[in-house]
């Protein structure tokens, strides 16, 4: 009997002990993001918050290919595993309409974030529907597509001479898409195992579409009218046909086996001496100026996506905003964290750690712009970005675009006009299915 009593008391003690630790864990926050360098920088940043407030914040990550699936599986199950998520810009429609994100409009207005953050980041990471004045996230990691190039190849006097003789102008950072094409062609020498350019071609998520967007937007085209869902004559416009043809032509100057390339392969094109120029998100450029990860670090230069034939200059938007998950049990703590996150000094620290702040004040400071060889190009790009559809059915639109465009770019099937006409029909059918067409 005495033994039983002792065991019972021990059991009660254990329950109390567990209870206390559960209570202590209430002051913990979990942020979910994809597995990449910026997530490590964010972990370093939130460690400072823990030191200040005593609230432990953990940045949990998963590989990019899995990110969307894992996040939405948790949302759909109304799970409280994550208090905040640094979600992709195109999720905002799906996540806000389904009630997965907490409405941050009051918070946004109270802190005047529309002015504090760069306009493009507010428009694409935070607001949904377009121009509605409703905000669902705080711009956290600004990002866009830019280019890296081999300065040593570009500045080689022999190459410069040969280039001028062939094309009639000086070899340098391309001033438009025509020059980009010429330079890619010039450096494309399969016999020497040197190739012209590395572009995005992976069709498993949004890589290929982001790559194509760079040419579409710079050729003066659009994907559609995001307010009315009209796509006819927009996605299959004359400019877009030319833009798609230009992207396909660039594909012919890529290294062999370049049909499933995304950020890893595009950075490898520079580090492994494969290509003269390489498209990538700015978020992946820190690895290129680090001599430990890029033996050509000193010879690597950067430029913003060049303008198209009519002088339009835009780039595909990447990056994410931070949102509070509606099923979180710690929403109040999460809001406190966001108040800390948007402070000027936090944003400055975020930029210093390697994060791409969206804070207009930090972006405009000469200190930020001179910090790395690509920060200036990043600053210029962030004011000329455009994004994919953010409607709840964006994933279907994305897969349809991949299905149509990929065989054309990599497999030589059909013409650009046929591909885009078929895509317009696919998108129309999808919008019709979801009653978007007015």
């Amino acid at each position: 009997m005495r033994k039983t009593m002792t065991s019972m008391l021990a059991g009660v003690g254990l329950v109390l002990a567990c209870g206390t630790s559960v209570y202590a864990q209430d002051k913990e926050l979990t942020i979910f993001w994809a597995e990449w360098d910026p997530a490590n920088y964010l972990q370093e940043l939130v460690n400072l918050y823990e030191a200040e407030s005593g609230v432990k914040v953990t940045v949990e990550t998963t590989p990019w290919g899995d990110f969307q699936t894992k996040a939405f599986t948790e949302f759909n199950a109304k799970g409280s595993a994550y208090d905040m998520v640094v979600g992709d810009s195109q999720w905002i429609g799906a996540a806000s309409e389904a009630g997965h994100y907490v409405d941050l409009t009051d918070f946004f207005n109270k802190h005047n974030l529309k002015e504090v953050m760069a306009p493009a980041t507010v428009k694409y990471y935070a607001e949904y529907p377009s121009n509605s004045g409703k905000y669902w996230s705080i711009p956290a990691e600004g990002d866009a597509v830019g280019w890296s190039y081999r300065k040593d190849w570009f500045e080689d006097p022999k190459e410069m001479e040969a280039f001028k003789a062939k094309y009639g102008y000086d070899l340098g950072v391309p001033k438009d898409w025509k020059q980009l094409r010429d330079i890619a062609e010039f450096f494309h020498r399969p016999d020497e195992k040197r190739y012209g350019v590395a572009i995005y071609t992976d069709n498993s998520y949004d890589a290929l579409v982001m790559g194509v967007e760079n040419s579409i937007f710079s050729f003066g085209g659009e994907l559609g009218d995001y307010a009315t869902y009209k796509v006819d004559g927009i996605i299959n416009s004359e400019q877009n046909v030319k833009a798609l043809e230009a992207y396909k032509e660039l594909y012919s100057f890529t290294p062999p086996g370049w049909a499933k390339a995304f950020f890893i392969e595009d950075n490898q094109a520079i580090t492994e001496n494969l290509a003269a120029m390489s498209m990538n998100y700015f978020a992946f450029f820190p690895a290129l100026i680090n001599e430990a990860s890029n033996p050509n670090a000193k010879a690597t230069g950067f430029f913003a996506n060049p303008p198209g034939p009519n002088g339009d200059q835009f780039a595909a938007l990447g990056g994410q905003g931070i949102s509070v998950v509606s099923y979180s049990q710690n929403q109040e703590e999460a809001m406190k964290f966001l108040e800390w996150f948007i402070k000027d000094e936090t944003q400055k620290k975020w930029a210093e750690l390697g994060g791409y702040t969206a804070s207009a004040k930090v972006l405009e400071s000469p200190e930020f712009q001179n910090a790395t060889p690509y920060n200036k190009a990043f600053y210029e790009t962030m004011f000329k970005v455009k994004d994919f559809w953010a409607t709840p059915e964006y994933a279907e639109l994305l897969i349809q675009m991949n299905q149509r465009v990929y065989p054309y770019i990599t497999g030589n099937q059909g013409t650009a006009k046929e591909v885009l006409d078929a895509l317009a029909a696919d998108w129309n059918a999808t919008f019709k299915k979801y009653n978007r067409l007015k």
Partner: protein
Amino acid sequence: MATAVMTTLDPNSRSAARGMSDLTIRNLFIIPTIVFLIVFNIFPLLYSLGYSFTDFRASSPAAANFVGLQNYRELLNDPFIWSNFAITAKYVIVSVVGQVIVGFGVALLLNRDIPLKGLLTTLLLLPMMLSMAVVGLFWKLLYDPSFGIINYTLGLGSFEWLSNPDMALYAVAITDIWMWSPFVMLLSLAGLSAVPKHLYEAAAIDRAGSFYTFFRITLPLVAPILMIAIIFRTMEAFKTFDLAYILTSQPTTEVISIRLYKMAFQEWQTGRSCALAYIVLIMILAITNIYVKYLNKVKER
């Protein structure tokens, strides 16, 4: 047979000493399995059948609406889905035929007294013990046009195995053949070792040629067990996902399970993907049934 097993409970056993009847013991073994099957297999199967007639999306809080056969109708009218099925069929044929030829061939070579036979067989079985994802990742490196060992060994220069839309499916099938031929080999070896030796002796006395011996003695006697291997491999090949997903993203390698995954977990079209899963299930059942019928015929012979 079952009663024979049930009535042999040893009266001196611990179960008998605890006063358990044969029936109790049977139930103890069977009921948990049945409950497990119902909860994790039968219930989701029926539940998803219900969803396949709705426009339900797991990503949206909106209630599911009954849409009748619309999902099935639209799927069966979608040219992309048909192309996925055609790709799957091509993949199944190439991969299963390849595995049977290689697996059965290796089994024939091993079915004799050779030194280190046991060790050789074990080593040959290694590929199928690896994880699909790992196999996919390292074959991706082997196929690499710039530094892959396959092009280097075969002197193919920078031949693009995975980026070439016409070649990619064969490249995936070759990997699958490499991985699963040992399975066919193992079953064939079991079948071959069961062929009575006196049949071969009789054939030798009758001066039958090796070609005749193979087609009249070896193959008919191994056929039933080979059919079982083919049934398993066909079902698996039909469901292939990992290898094709990891190795390449060519539309020419988008087998039906990849399309299903995208529809269910990227587009979140839950209702429609349930319908597609049912179409795939019915197809696999039909194909397996044909095989089983044929297997029974082979056995009767």
